[in-house]
C-alpha cells in the first residue's frame, strides 16, 4: 500500500541556496508526527516545500503515490491542508466564512459543502461563535477556527506550522487534544517548539538540525536527554 506522504532525497530552499538537504521521510494515516529542532533547522522550510511554496531543487514529494510536482495547486489542496501560527485574524469575516474557505478546493455550492462546514464547526465546538466576527474572538478560539477550516477541506494530511506558538498553556493543551483526537482518520505533521507537549501528544518525532534529519522515531526513543542536548546544543549555553 502506498503511504499518504513519501519524501525522497528532497533538497529545497530560497533562491539558489538549499536550506533542507537530502530529506527522506514517509508517514501514513493514524500518525501524529512532530518536527522538532533548533531555529533555522529547516522544519518550516520542509513544510513550505511540501506545500509547494518553495522551488524544489532535487528530490520528490509523493502524495498518496502521486508526484506533487505534477499536481495542480487545487489538486494538491485536496490532499494537504495547512494550519499556520495564529496570526491577527481578518476583520469583517465571520467564523463560518473563514471555515467555508476550506471548501475552495472542492467544487463549491453543493449540499456537501454545508454538511462539511457544519460537521467541522461541531467537531471543534464553535457552534455558539458561528456568526461572530473573527476579530472579536480569542487566539485559542481562532486556532480552533483554523483547525475547523482544515477539517472542512477534507484532506488526509494536515500540516501545521507552530500551531500553539502564541497560545497560553490552556489553549495549547486544548489545541493538542483536538489534533490528537483527529489522528485516527488523518496524518498530522506539525512543527512544534514545546518538547513537553510533543512528549504528551505526538507518536513520532523527527528531529531536524542544519537542514537534515538528526533522528526519526518514536517519542520515547528520540526525546532522550543526550539527543536533545546534542541537537539543540544546550551544553554550549550552560
Amino acid at each position: 500500500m502506498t503511504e499518504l506522504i513519501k519524501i525522497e532525497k528532497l533538497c529545497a530552499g530560497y533562491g539558489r541556496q538549499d536550506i533542507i538537504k537530502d530529506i527522506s521521510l514517509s508517514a501514513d494515516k493514524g500518525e501524529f508526527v512532530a518536527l522538532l529542532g533548533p531555529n533555522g533547522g529547516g522544519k518550516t522550510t520542509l513544510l513550505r516545500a511540501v506545500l509547494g511554496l518553495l522551488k524544489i531543487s532535487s528530490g520528490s514529494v509523493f502524495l498518496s503515490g502521486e508526484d506533487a510536482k505534477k499536481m495542480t495547486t487545487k489538486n494538491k489542496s485536496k490532499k494537504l491542508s495547512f494550519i499556520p501560527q495564529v496570526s491577527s485574524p481578518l476583520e469583517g469575516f465571520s467564523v463560518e466564512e473563514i471555515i467555508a474557505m476550506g471548501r475552495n478546493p472542492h467544487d463549491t455550492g453543493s449540499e456537501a459543502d454545508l454538511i462539511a462546514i457544519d460537521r467541522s464547526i461541531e467537531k471543534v465546538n464553535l457552534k455558539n461563535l458561528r456568526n461572530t466576527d473573527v476579530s472579536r474572538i480569542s487566539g485559542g478560539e481562532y486556532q480552533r477556527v483554523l483547525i475547523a477550516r482544515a477539517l472542512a477541506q477534507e484532506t488526509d494530511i494536515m500540516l501545521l506550522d507552530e500551531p500553539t506558538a502564541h497560545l497560553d498553556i490552556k489553549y495549547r493543551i486544548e489545541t493538542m487534544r483536538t489534533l490528537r483526537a483527529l489522528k485516527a482518520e488523518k496524518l498530522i505533521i506539525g512543527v512544534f517548539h514545546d518538547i513537553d507537549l510533543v512528549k504528551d501528544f505526538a507518536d513520532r518525532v523527527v528531529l531536524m538540525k542544519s537542514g537534515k534529519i538528526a533522528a526519526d522515531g518514536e517519542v520515547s526513543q528520540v526525546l532522550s536527554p543526550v539527543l536533545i542536548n546534542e541537537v539543540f546544543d544546550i551544553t554550549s549555553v550552560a
Partner: protein
Amino acid sequence: MRTKTLLVFFVLVFLLAVSLAAGFVFGAVAVNPFDASRVSEMIFWNIRCPRVLLAALVGAMLSVSGAVLQGVLKNPLSDPYILGVSSGGAVGAVLSMLIGLPLYAVCIVSFLFALTSVAVVYSFSRTSSGIRPEVLVLAGVALSSLLGAALVAVVYSSDSLQGVYFWLFGSFSFSSFLFVKIAAVIAAVGISVSIVFSKQLNILLLGEEEAVSLGVNTGFVRAALLFAASLLSAVSVSMVGIIGFVGLIIPHIVRLVIGGNNILLIPASGLLGASFLVIADLLSRTLISPGELPVGIITAFVGAPFFIFLLRKKKND
C-alpha cells in the same frame, strides 16, 4: 444571504434608482420627463442622459477597482490610481493635446499611457516567486511622482493647455453615448472578472501560504484582478479625467456596513459608487449653475465628512 445583507442591497439599488432619476430631471435646466417639447427632449437625450449614465458607470468602475486593489495589495490606502494609472493617463492626454489631436484620439492615447504605466509598475514588482504587493505599491508611487513631475513640466512650459485641467480634476461635460457604450462594455468585463474572482480574493487576504494551501493559484488570480482593476480605472481616466476619492472611500464605507467579504463588497461598492458619482455630478452642475464645479471637489467635500462620521460611529459601537 442574511436579512441585513439583503436589506443593504435593496437600499443600494433603491438609492441608485433615486439618484439616476434626480440626475435625469435636475440640472442647469430642469427637465420634466412628461414634457414632450423638442428642447426638453434634446437636453434629455443629447446631454443629460449620457452624462448621468456615464457618471453612474464611472462611479461603479472606480469603486470596484478600488475595492479590488485594496484587497489584492492588502493596503487600505490603495485607490484606483495607485499603480500609476492617473499620472500615466494624464501625461498621455497632455501630450496628445499638445500636438492638437481630436478628443477621441486624446482618450485613446490617454488610455494607452495609463495601461503602459501599470505594465511598467507590474514588471518592476515581478519576482521568480510571483508579484510582491509592497513593491507594486512603491513602484506605483515612484512612477506616479516621476510622471507627475513630467506633467507639471509640460504644462508649465506651454500656454495652450487649458484643457489639461479637465484631466486633473475630472469632468463629465464631454459625455456622449459613444462613451457610455464603451464604458458599459468595459464595466461589464472588469466588474464580472472582479466578482468571479472575489471568493479567491477573500482567501488571498489570508496570505500566500494559506491561499496556496486552500488551492488558490495565487499568481493567476492576482494577475487577473490587477488587470481588471487597471482596465476599469484606465478607461475611466481616459474618458473623464482623474476623479479622486470615490475609489478610495466607497469600498471603506461599504466595508464598515457589511464587512470585508469581497463577494458582497465588490458588487455593493459598485452600486454605491454609481449613486455617489451621479449625485456628485448633479451637485457639480447645479451648485453654481450655469457654471460648473469640478466633480472631484464635490466627491471630496461630500465624501470625506461622511466617511469620518461613519468611522467615528463604528468606533463608538
